[in-house]
């Protein structure tokens, strides 16, 4: 199988390479593509962001209002005398649980936005993919970047809320990038896989619509994973989201370093998903152009 290499959008080479050379090129290719197409990524991202709030008077205020509303409702909803996990939290049980849920939901929402959108992603951009020299692999990157922006707004709202309630933040908050960036890579990889699959069959989209809500409960969002009985509290790590949720809570809410094994597991799922997704997308990209 010959491999195509587009250098700087200037040079197109289809050639046969040795195994080692091919492996090196494969590992570097997603990053080379992102670097070479940074202006295109910027142009389309700009358009996607302006489109989201087009025709709305409040515009960007909505992006802040939504998470603010959510965390307010959680706080109010849990000011009952339920027996709640994390009752020993310094912030007091009620607000502690609200933050506990909110941190889980931030991670979950980031994931679910990508999972819902990815299968239809290539269909949204058919006109580009079929008619011009278009790096279709960058669409997954662009849509992840867009979702990243909203997630960052949510995280900011959470941190502000946490400061206003507890009067401070643990230093481990500074470690957020170390879990956030692998999570982005995980989502980009997942989007590559899902959007390639979605190009072949619309079933991928319907499947995600049914599966995503179930993951709300298959992920420890409303309960700590430690509350599960013995085999389940280990098996739940098969759901890769569990690790990210746990690391996020450790460093933001509890102010402690995450369990190194859990952290390594999230790194592994991140790198594996990123490259598996890219491999899958790359393998079928020439067929995708023809079938979409």
């Amino acid at each position, binding site marked *: 199988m*010959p491999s*195509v290499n*587009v250098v*700087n*959008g*200037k*040079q*197109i*080479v*289809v*050639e*046969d390479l040795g195994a080692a050379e091919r492996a090196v090129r494969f590992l570097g290719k997603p990053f080379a593509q992102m670097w070479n197409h940074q*202006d*295109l990524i*910027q*142009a*389309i991202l*700009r*358009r996607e962001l302006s*489109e989201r709030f087009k025709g709305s008077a409040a515009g960007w205020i909505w992006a802040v209002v939504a998470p603010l509303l959510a965390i307010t409702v959680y706080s109010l909803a849990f000011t009952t005398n339920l027996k709640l996990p994390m009752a020993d939290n310094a912030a007091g049980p009620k607000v502690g649980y609200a933050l506990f849920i909110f941190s889980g939901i931030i991670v979950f929402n980031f994931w679910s936005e990508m999972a819902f959108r990815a299968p239809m992603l290539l269909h949204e951009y058919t*006109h*580009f993919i*079929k*008619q*011009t*020299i*278009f790096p279709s692999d960058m669409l997954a990157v662009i849509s992840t970047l867009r979702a990243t922006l909203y997630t960052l707004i949510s995280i900011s709202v959470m941190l502000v809320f946490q400061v206003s309630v507890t009067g401070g933040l643990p230093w481990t908050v500074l470690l957020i990038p170390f879990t956030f960036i692998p999570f982005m890579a995980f989502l980009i990889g997942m989007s590559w896989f899902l959007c*390639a*699959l979605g190009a*072949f*069959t619309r*079933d991928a989209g319907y499947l995600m619509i049914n599966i995503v809500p179930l993951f709300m409960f298959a992920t420890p969002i409303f309960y700590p994973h430690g509350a599960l009985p013995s085999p389940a509290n280990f098996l739940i790590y098969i759901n890769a989201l569990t690790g990210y949720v746990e690391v996020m809570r450790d460093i933001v809410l509890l102010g402690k370093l995450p369990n190194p094994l859990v952290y390594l597991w999230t790194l592994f799922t991140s790198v594996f998903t990123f490259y598996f997704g890219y491999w899958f997308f790359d393998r*079928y*990209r*020439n*067929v995708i*152009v*023809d*079938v979409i």
Partner: protein
Amino acid sequence: MSLSTSSDIVIQTRHLGKAYQLYARRSDWLKQVMLGWWKSYFKPFWVLRDIDLQVRRGESIGILGRNGCGKSTLLQVICGMTLPSHGELRVTGRIAPVLALGSTFDLELSGRENVMIGGAVLGLKRSEVLRKFSSIAEFAGIGDYMEQPVKHYSMGMRTRLAFAICAHVEAEILVVDEALAVGDVAFQRKCLDWIDNFRRSGTLLFVSHSMAEVRRLCTRAVWIEEGRIREEGDPSEVIRNYHRALMVEKDDVHRFSASG
């Protein structure tokens, strides 16, 4: 012809072939993705076979052939839009594809926003697009419509804007696929004059059913039939033979069938 080194060759294909995968049912696509390593669920339909083509810097190649002979696919493969199924391809230099003009526009966005995105798709930096914007607007000549959503444009206006973008990417290789048929005569002439001027410095691949245009613009003609190069050489001669063949050979209704 003067001696040429290999660096003069901007497009080189060797035994290039392209097969589309024809599926009987839509679900076979998915089976192919999941189980493709085990057996194949499609019929290959070879649109290009064994294309050996060398294009030197500064050449203008006219590509002739009947509908469905594979000329558009050849251009798409050379532009890197779709991968060849077989063979080698090497293209050196920035390509501007003038194919299906205007169909890449986002109808909801204004002409200006489409210029920004279209320029980026063709490989321009944001600063470059901004710098060239007034020149693009002038070439397109659509006036105040630039700020309107593209959905309010006529076909001709879309073509004008799309060609104006392509004309400003400073391409080294221009690939034109009978795209100019939509514009009015004055605009067509403007585009042809621009292409004529471009030929002095760049390389041109040109598909047209207008033999007069091919004769005027091209230094070499390639006649493609059923995915193979049937004849290649001096434009007047190839055009003469092509015409003669068109007279003799009838329009075959079965030529798009995969079997045979």
